[in-house]
């Protein structure tokens, strides 16, 4: 089973200068809990922000929702390829203590996000059906 078979295809990004409030609305609108941060006009991916970041670093700390994303995002992105095996992606997440990786296509363009939960769900589905899943 490949990452492409379980990943969430997503190309929406936010800018480092976007407010946390705006990014939270974007998460609601796109039904996602993690958004890669991209420098507008340049296209470089510089980090990622999750709904958990917003809860823990804005709400819990009593900071303003107008705080710029760059102040609370996780700098740097860990990724994998669409062609990678899901077991390999899961191992990488475990090693990095992360719950998601961004996914790049063959042209090294951002194509989505894969989460540990998506991989585990697929592995459980495959186990229930007594096989190794789709090859």
């Amino acid at each position, binding site marked *: 089973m490949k990452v492409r078979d379980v990943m969430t295809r997503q190309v929406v990004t936010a800018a480092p200068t*976007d*407010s946390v*409030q705006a990014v939270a*609305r*974007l998460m*609601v609108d796109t039904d996602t809990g993690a958004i890669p941060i991209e420098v*507008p006009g340049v296209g470089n991916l510089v980090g990622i922000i999750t709904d958990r970041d917003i809860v823990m670093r804005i709400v819990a700390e009593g900071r303003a*929702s107008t705080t710029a994303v760059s102040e609370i995002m996780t700098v740097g992105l860990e990724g994998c390829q669409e062609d990678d095996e899901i077991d390999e992606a899961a191992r990488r997440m475990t090693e990095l203590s992360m719950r998601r990786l961004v996914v790049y296509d063959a042209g090294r363009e951002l194509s989505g996000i894969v989460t540990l939960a998506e991989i585990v769900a697929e592995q459980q589905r495959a186990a229930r059906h007594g096989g190794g899943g789709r090859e």
Partner: protein
Amino acid sequence: MNDRLWSEAVILEAPDRQLRVESTRDADICLRRYWPVQDGRAWELAREACQRALAGHASPDSARRAFIEAAREAGFDLRAWT
């Protein structure tokens, strides 16, 4: 895509609520999901203006101006310098 920051944020205030909007994309989301009045003429024009700007057929500033009119129509207290 012209979905990034406007030249100046628009801050909308209502009781127990403050929306700070800084881009056409965010304005479009606010109009669709967080707007108290979704049948006004200015709301309709603002949605169209946002769509045109997001498609690259109009400037972000034109969307911002239409958004401000929709905010007035909806009864928000408005904070914007321009």
